[in-house]
């Protein structure tokens, strides 16, 4: 009896808090057929927002993947003073409010700061432009790849890498032929999480982008701007698109999650 009550409570909680709200928005979006959805998502502003999102998220994922794999190797395979500190600093972004991320970047790279002023004199505008949005996205998604790869690298051990060395493989060859295949599922998991976080970032990007419609507007900013301007169909269509991306992400991570996979074959 107690078991059934608990089950009912848990399912109802998740249903009311997560499932129904998302279902309602999908229903509202597609309630009048695909027409309004297609129309809303093919408007020039929506298409542009989609492009901006893709560019910013693409850069952030590439940068964080390279940094993430490198740092994970550093943390697992090398010894150096301050290793614990580096490990702790990697997690710092998870504790920072997205708005504070935006503020922090404005203070350093904004036009009125020394660094930002210098960059501006070289013709590089960071804040209210793509580089700033990439920086903000990199910041919020920074720990994801590192945290996905580190445990798998630890579990993998370094014997296979040593074996490759004794067989004549260089460091690069060992990395490409042995280490990378060993961590591929975890890396895939980390990259998918990183991509989802990057596509969906709102607060930090809202601050550093200046929210310039048709210029620095990402899909998440488009949702908010359209909603505030009483264009509910467009807001719902964009939100549904993002929600569907989130669902795909969930299924992908389910597929890739290291603990759910026994072996790499």
């Amino acid at each position: 009896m107690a078991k059934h009550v608990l089950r009912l409570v848990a399912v109802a909680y998740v249903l009311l808090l997560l499932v129904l709200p998302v279902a309602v928005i999908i229903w509202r979006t597609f309630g009048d057929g695909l027409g309004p959805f297609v129309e809303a998502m093919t408007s020039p502003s929506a298409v542009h927002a989609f492009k901006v999102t893709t560019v910013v998220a693409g850069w952030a994922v590439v940068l964080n993947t390279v940094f993430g794999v490198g740092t994970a190797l550093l943390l697992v395979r090398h010894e150096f003073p301050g290793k614990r500190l580096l490990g702790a600093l990697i997690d710092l972004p998870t504790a920072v409010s997205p708005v504070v991320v935006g503020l922090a970047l404005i203070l350093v790279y904004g036009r009125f700061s020394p660094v930002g002023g210098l960059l501006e004199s070289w013709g590089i505008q960071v804040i209210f432009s793509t580089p700033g949005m990439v920086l903000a996205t990199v910041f919020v998604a920074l720990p994801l790849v590192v945290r996905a790869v580190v445990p798998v690298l630890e579990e993998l051990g370094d014997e296979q890498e040593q074996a490759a060395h004794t067989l004549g493989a260089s460091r690069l060859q060992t990395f490409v032929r042995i280490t990378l295949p060993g961590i591929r599922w975890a890396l895939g998991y980390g990259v998918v999480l990183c991509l989802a976080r990057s596509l969906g970032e709102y607060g930090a990007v809202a601050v550093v982008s200046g929210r310039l419609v048709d210029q620095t507007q990402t899909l998440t900013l488009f949702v908010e701007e359209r909603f505030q301007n009483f264009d509910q169909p467009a807001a719902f269509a964009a939100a549904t698109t993002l929600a569907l991306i989130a669902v795909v992400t969930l299924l992908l991570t389910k597929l890739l999650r290291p603990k759910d996979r026994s072996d790499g074959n």
Partner: protein
Amino acid sequence: MTAITVRPVRRPAGGTAAGLGVAVLYLSLIVLIPLAAVVWRSADQGPGYFWRSVTTPDAWAALTLTIGASALVALINLVMGTAIAWVLVRDRFPGRAVLDTIIDLPFALPTIVAGLVLLALYGPQSPLGINLAYSRAGVVLALMFVTLPFVVRTVQPVLLELDTEMEQAAASLGAGPFQIFRRVILPNLIPAMLSGTALAFTRAIAEFGSTVLISGNLPFKTQVAAVNIFGQIESDNTTGAAAISTVLLAVALVALITLDALQRWGSRRG
């Protein structure tokens, strides 16, 4: 053959130093220097100014609302998160795997979309007839949404690893179901429950996107700290924004240090 070559152990040192250099530079340019700039800016005009910025009526109201709502949400998660983890691990019913997957939805769903979907179900046009828009309950609802996975995902693995023989031993010694839960299971879960709660709390005080639409951002009523900071940045009061940001960072730091201590406590107890 008497040649003796003396060298300190430093085989991978060259590669390590270069890699470490790049990693630290990346981290510094994107995370550390900007965050230091926030703290630096908040102290820019002296402690008096800092204090006045934090205690302006609207900023103070936003801070107290944020911390209060976050504490309430953390508590709700402590109970509901543990209950959901329990159901996921110990209960068997059709759809359990789907439920398990859905738990991570808040991690994958953009926060602004989370706010919008909540507004669709619990807003003025609610099909259920429940309107929580522009109320503090709406803020709490948004925070509940984005923090749902934390306790579930920290408690679940511990519960999975928990040896059921321990419970059978307790039962053989005459303990009833409630006693087993209270005396055997709960003590083993508490460290994970508390660290999940601490994570949920730090996430809640930092939250911005999901509260933007549903709260209406009414100063003194539903405006959370992050939204207040956003407003100050928009009106070019970066020093004030930095002051409130520093308070948020400090609260998060305290929560994380507590979390670290809890985890050590937990691992010591094995």
